[in-house]
């Protein structure tokens, strides 16, 4: 099984030629179940979509969600149904004022990505910081992380993110098999996300 992988921590990571991350772990389990070997092909989304078209990769992962441009439309690759739904919450450092409306406020993020885009959508100003847990301003992250860091969750929730994977177009039987696996291992995916982010 050849897996196209786009770097997107914590879902997918390539470090020194070794793949890791939530989706990588899930697919390794899937391959084990199928009795297949796994090879990982790193690349960018457009590169790997092209590879999928030419049937050079069998699965494509990279923390894609139902709004990821290029992938979610299902035009360049077939996409699975949602295998995991997550939601980020804005939290404030202990002892600071709790608010419901994030608009006009600076909110710390790890980097400028889809999360930052969602914050902007809500009117907030995303600020990339080195270490979220040490930020001295509101942060956007998962609820359990806020708890672990002693942050106070606010009423400001970001839109749900529906996580998906992709397969080459027209691979209907393969897609159904992957979807079946992901359905059965829904809890495992949640577990992995918690491990990765705590």
């Amino acid at each position, binding site marked *: 099984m050849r897996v196209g992988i786009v770097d997107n921590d914590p879902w997918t990571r390539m470090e020194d030629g070794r793949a890791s991350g939530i989706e990588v772990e899930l697919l390794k389990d899937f391959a084990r179940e199928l009795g297949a070997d796994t090879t990982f092909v790193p690349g960018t989304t457009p590169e790997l979509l092209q590879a999928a078209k030419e049937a050079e990769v069998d699965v494509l992962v990279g923390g894609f969600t139902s709004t990821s441009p290029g992938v979610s439309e*299902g035009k360049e690759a*077939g*996409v699975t149904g949602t295998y995991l739904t997550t939601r980020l919450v804005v939290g404030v450092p202990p002892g600071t004022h709790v608010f419901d409306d994030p608009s006009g406020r600076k909110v710390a993020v790890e980097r400028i990505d889809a999360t930052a885009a969602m914050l902007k959508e809500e009117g907030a100003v995303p600020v990339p910081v080195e270490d979220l847990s040490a930020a001295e301003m509101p942060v956007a992250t998962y609820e359990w992380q806020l708890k672990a860091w002693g942050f106070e969750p606010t009423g400001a929730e970001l839109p749900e993110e529906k996580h998906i994977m992709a397969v*080459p*177009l*027209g691979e*209907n039987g393969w897609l*159904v098999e992957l*979807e*079946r696996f992901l359905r059965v291992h829904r809890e495992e995916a949640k577990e992995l996300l918690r491990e990765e982010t705590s």
Partner: protein
Amino acid sequence: MGRARSAELPPELQQTLSKARRLEWLTIAYLTSAVILLALVLGSSQAMKTAWIEDLLSLIPPIAFLLAMRFNSRAPTARFPYGFHRIVSIAHLCSALALFVMGTYLLVESIIKLITAEYPTINSVELFGQTIWLGWLMLPALAWSGLPAVFLGRAKITLAEELHNKVLYADAKMNKADWLTASAAMVGVVGIGFGLWWLDAVAAALISLDITKDGVSNLRRAVVDLMDQTPTTIDEDDADPLHERLAEMLRDLDWVEDVDLRLREEGQVYFGEAVVVSYDETNIPEKVENAIKRARDLDWRIYDLALTPVRELPGTDERTAKGERAG
């Protein structure tokens, strides 16, 4: 002269009309259920999408029919001295245009899919704890969208003939052909299931071809009706024999020497003018009134006839000559 009566239909056909109305309401309810059902299982199959859009479009003719039937029998007003009969033809034109435009669009889309070899990919869903390929669920939904329609279409086609209503007729014919659409879409979906991706696009192209064909033939008929073509029978494109019967009846009147008659369709009824040359010029008003009454008694579709007595038929030669050249 023959100023319109407010109700178009004779009493015995009023019942047929209420039956047609009921069937059209039933059609709307049924099609809505089919549209919802198909929407629930709509994946990325082009054939499926085309069948779905066809069902959506099939909603237009019954709605057009019911709307037109609300207005067409209204009494003429000062502003609309000819009444509102033509609203049926306009409804016909609108539904034909919708069919034609949508059919062409879908045809182009499926051909593009065929050329670019876009492989349709259909997901699975979880049903009762089981993962089922959505394609299999599409099949019963398509069957529901195709089979009952045939019976509705059959029932409506007889009513359409009795009512001489072309909107109802077009609608009934579309329903009757629905099983073809549904089975083509099923073949497309099963094709995807067996890895024959092109079968989907081919099925979609066939369905859209059928929609386009319906659109073109209806468009043509609606346009020629609005251009005051001489009345035609509802199923074929032949001239309605009623025209000849009426001319014959007028010619047979003992005071009439010659007749020039022209009729046009206004929705389900006919309007027209007859110019007659008379042997005998006494009591003309009574004779004309009597002739109009007899014309109306001939058939309910002869609705508004103007009868003009003259000494000589005007421009007959000219008109016949042109008609012959065109024919």
